[in-house]
């Protein structure tokens, strides 16, 4: 089965972004790279979904942006978690874990 482009639901994508930023501030390109890396290329976030998600999170106040210099000495917009964002991450991650556990239970039921 090839790597089809799955459109991650909003909630899941937001969650992944928040989690990635929890480690360190990052710019958009870096975020999608990191997600791809860690998931061993299973998760490939398209630009068309990434940037709207970033704006959404910014509007909700869970991340904030500032301009900095990137690795190749270019100006880039860096995003970082806000305090509210950290709290949201915990809540979301918890809910997600519960849901996936529930689904796993169903899938494994005898």
């Amino acid at each position, binding site marked *: 089965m090839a790597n089809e482009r799955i459109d991650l*639901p909003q*909630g899941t994508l937001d969650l992944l972004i928040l989690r990635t930023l929890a*480690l360190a501030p990052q710019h958009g390109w870096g975020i999608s790279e990191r997600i791809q890396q860690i998931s*061993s290329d299973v998760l490939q976030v398209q630009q068309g979904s990434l940037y709207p998600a970033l704006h959404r999170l910014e509007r909700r106040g869970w991340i904030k942006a500032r301009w900095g210099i990137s690795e190749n000495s270019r100006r880039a917009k860096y995003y970082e978690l806000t305090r509210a964002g950290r709290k949201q991450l915990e809540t979301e991650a918890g809910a*997600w874990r519960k*849901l996936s556990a*529930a*689904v796993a239970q169903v*899938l494994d*039921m005898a």
Partner: protein
Amino acid sequence: MGKHPTPSELLPGTLDLLILRTLAPGPMHGYGIAHRLQQVSDDVLQVGESSLYPALQRLLLNGWVKAEWGASENNRRARYYTLTAAGRKQLVSEREEFTRMIGAIQKVLDTA
């Protein structure tokens, strides 16, 4: 995620997968499927009728289940759904895919 998380918030197509899995042991009608999902997941998964029946129609359309009228517990007519051979195959492949995706997401969420 809202107060009543739906399986679709996990990954698209999760609901279809769950229904297929629930039907694996044997035929069931709509109410039974919803009830079973709720039971096995300790009340976490509450599938509403507004998502359940359209999903069942979709499975019918794809030929992964078939439906027959029978009598329900309270002696009324109800439609019982059964997995087809294609449906069983689909269950296996979807489950693999699902596990892979969830695993990947989990990895990201677990990084220190």
